[in-house]
């Protein structure tokens, strides 16, 4: 669909043929808003109207061209009148200096154009008009991406304007295979959504499924890319994300080069990437800008941090409650000494500390930047210290909770950190009830869930299970470039996994 067509509710009414009717029709459709400007003009002896929305459009180019044309045309006014159709064509081809110009013939298209920041040029007596793209939106300049910063690497981040964002990607991949497809979604907001992919690398099956989902998505409004994310993800109820998002053009470009598909949403600097697998959430763009061996170690550390963030409180509870014999004797003595006067069982202790920490973390987000950071981590330690001295919590517990929280922050993708935070609690409950046995059984269940999960038909744990040796260059560690020209094998959607038991490996 072209940029000025709309889906659904806009009136399909033909444009009226007289100037006054046209103006009235627009007023009726869009209300007598004070920011819609109607400017009368004349071209080749025919009366016309230039309509635009102040603040969204910049019609100076159009008005300038019209004025110039009028000046030149003084000589031709005397000739036999030009028909409105010819005049319109003349306008479109020779006169107006805007790049994007289209003919429209419905009120719906006119309103879409106006609301997008375009200008409508209407000539009396013709049921057609011209829509020109004249956006001049006030928007943020390209700045550093705040949510994902790196020590070394480009500092550009996406902005809220979809055309800026597509440009940022185009600049990095100057390849004719880079394709885009346009959607206008959301009945009430009519937001622009663009799907980008590399032709030949992206799996057409995944593309088709994505288009299907986007077309079927029945949202009234789209304000952020998360709205789309929730509509296209395969599994609604999993704590693990199956759609990756990023604010950085270099991350998105590298994903596109791997054969994945990007979804840009107007109004949000967070671009979605599909399909997204487990290992993608442990990759950071910095891995590729620093030395390979260092990056490999750090990446392994991240996997380890995920395990720590998930399991540490549960292990603590399990070992102190059921398996005390596993602790070396000296440590055991000091732990027992600490837990001596504590009124709560280990599980309640852990629960209290974890919830306190979550409260602090949530509060820290909203405090002004200068205080915010310190409140989160240091605050917990301080409060923890006070609680220890009051005899409510054991010191070891404070350490456990702090390590858990800090490991959580070490994960490069925020959404996987959320998963770990959520899943901590079932593990804690089960370890309180069944100790180590409970943890292992729940780990098996978690493993089952992860193995069952799919992102756009690609198994979530691909590269680990099914194990692909060729992909190991980039999954757990990153091999240095001379050894690995191409990092990633293709991501193919599995042949109709309607039920995983019928699918392939």
């Amino acid at each position, binding site marked *: 669909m072209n940029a000025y067509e709309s889906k659904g509710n806009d009136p399909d009414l033909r444009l009226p043929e007289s100037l006054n009717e046209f103006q009235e029709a627009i007023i009726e459709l869009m209300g007598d808003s004070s920011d819609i400007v109607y400017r009368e003009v004349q071209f080749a002896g025919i009366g016309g109207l230039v309509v635009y929305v102040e603040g969204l459009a910049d019609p100076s180019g159009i008005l300038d061209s019209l004025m110039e044309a009028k000046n030149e045309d003084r000589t031709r006014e005397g000739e036999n009148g030009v028909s409105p159709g010819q005049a319109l064509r003349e306008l479109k081809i020779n006169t107006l200096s805007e790049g994007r110009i289209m003919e429209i013939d419905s009120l719906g298209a006119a309103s879409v154009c106006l609301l997008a920041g375009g200008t409508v040029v209407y000539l009396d007596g013709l049921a057609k008009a011209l829509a020109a793209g004249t956006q001049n939106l006030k928007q943020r300049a390209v700045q550093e991406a705040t949510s994902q910063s790196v020590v070394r690497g480009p500092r550009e981040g996406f902005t809220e304007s979809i055309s800026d964002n597509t440009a940022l990607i185009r600049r990095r991949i100057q390849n004719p295979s880079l394709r885009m497809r346009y959607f206008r979604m959301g009945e009430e907001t009519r937001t622009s959504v663009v799907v980008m992919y590399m032709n030949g690398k992206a799996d057409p099956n995944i593309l088709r499924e994505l288009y299907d989902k986007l077309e079927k998505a029945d949202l009234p409004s789209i304000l952020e890319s998360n709205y789309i994310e929730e509509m296209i993800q395969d599994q609604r109820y999993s704590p693990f994300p199956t759609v990756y998002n990023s604010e950085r053009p270099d991350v998105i470009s590298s994903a596109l080069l791997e054969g994945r598909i990007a979804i840009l949403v107007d109004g949000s600097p967070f671009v979605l990437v599909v399909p997204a697998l487990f290992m993608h959430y442990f990759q950071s763009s910095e891995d590729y800008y620093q030395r390979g061996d260092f990056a490999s170690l750090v990446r392994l550390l991240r996997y380890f941090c995920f395990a720590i963030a998930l399991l540490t409180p549960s292990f603590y509870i399990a070992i102190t409650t*059921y*398996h005390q*014999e*596993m602790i*070396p*004797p000296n440590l055991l003595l000091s732990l027992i000494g600490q837990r001596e006067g504590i009124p709560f069982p280990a599980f309640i202790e852990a629960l209290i500390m974890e919830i306190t920490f979550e409260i602090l973390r949530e509060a820290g987000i909203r405090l002004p930047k200068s205080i915010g950071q310190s409140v989160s981590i240091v605050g917990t330690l301080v409060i923890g210290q006070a609680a220890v001295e009051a005899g409510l919590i054991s010191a070891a517990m404070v350490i456990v909770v702090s390590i858990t929280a800090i490991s959580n922050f070490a994960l490069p993708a925020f959404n996987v950190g959320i998963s770990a935070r959520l899943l901590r609690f079932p593990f804690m409950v089960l370890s309180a009830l*069944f*100790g*180590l*046995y*409970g943890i*292992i*059984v729940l780990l*098996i*269940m978690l*493993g*089952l*869930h*992860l*193995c*069952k999960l799919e992102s756009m038909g690609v*198994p979530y*744990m691909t590269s*680990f*299970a*099914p*194990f692909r040796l060729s992909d190991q260059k980039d999954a757990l560690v990153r091999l240095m470039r001379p050894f690995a020209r191409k990092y990633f094998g293709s991501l193919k959607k599995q042949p109709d996994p309607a*039920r*995983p*038991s*019928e*699918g*392939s*490996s």
Partner: protein
Amino acid sequence: MGSRQFFILTFGLTVGTSILVTPSGLAATAREDAWLGGLAGYMINLGMAAMYIGLVKLFPGQNLFGMFEKAFGKWAGKAVSLLYFVYFLILAGTLLGNLGFFVTSEVLPDTPIDIVQILFLAACVMCAKTGIVVLARLGELMFPWILFFFMVLILALLPQIEWDYIAPVLEGGLGPVLTAGFHASMFQELIVMVVFVPQLASLRNWKGAFLGGLTFGHLLLVSVVLFSVLILGIEQSANSTFPAYALAKTISLGNFLQRIEGILIALWIMTFFLKTMMLFFSMMQGMKTILGLKSASYAVYPIAVVLLLVAWNTYVNSVYIGEVIQKVWGGYAMIHLVAIPLLTGASGLLRRRMKILSENAEPT
């Protein structure tokens, strides 16, 4: 399902429960040669595996239950399949009982046995509903960890080996070794893998995967038996219910790495899960083939409930189960693992010969 996944699943099936209990039986019969008994068991299992491979060749494209129908006719075949269904059911239930027993006696002494089993069944039900492909993937995830834990155990145990425990070798002659091996081999239900051969993505190297999984699993088992003899000595090995666990308890490196039997627990639960799930899936496949169903996933909960009942009624107490395993299980297993497959193979060969004869008799 790929061949690597098949390998891992065979491996899990082989190791399964045996890693915990086999040493005691072998040590009781073969004394110091328990590890030789383990090797003998391996040989016997190899022979059984070769027979199964032959079966697959004779009845291409059929799973185990289909083979019976082809070999013995439709209704007799279904009856035989039903027999196997019951066999797998009882086996899985007994395994579940074994699990409950182990956990409540060694790991969580104050927990009632029922809830331990129910928790495990919850994971089994979840897996059964998602399908065997997911289990295969999970196996791929678990395999490195199983290896890692095993290596840690082995390495940590090395300092404690007393090489004299293994002497004298072959004191009683080969007899006890073979008997012990025979008994041990009855606990490897490799025939379960035959149920899944048709589901392999490609039949190219399935034999390698099958035999490889078997061999690798036995490698683990024999190592455990060996170490059990070398470290615990035969008396302790023969007398403890869970020798491998006792083995893990002896680990003491420096003053720090002590009592890390948690590792063995994790290892064991993982392999146990693989084995139990293979049995579960073969039961579901059996139901589908025998009754001609479209899917068996709705039967998962009822099967789980029945498994629980079997577990409660089999593992009544350890004396009972010890006696039953010694006296009754051997014969029961042999029927299913050796006797019937032989008959099936014979029938298959016969049919093939008759077919060739009748083809030759036709005028060309």
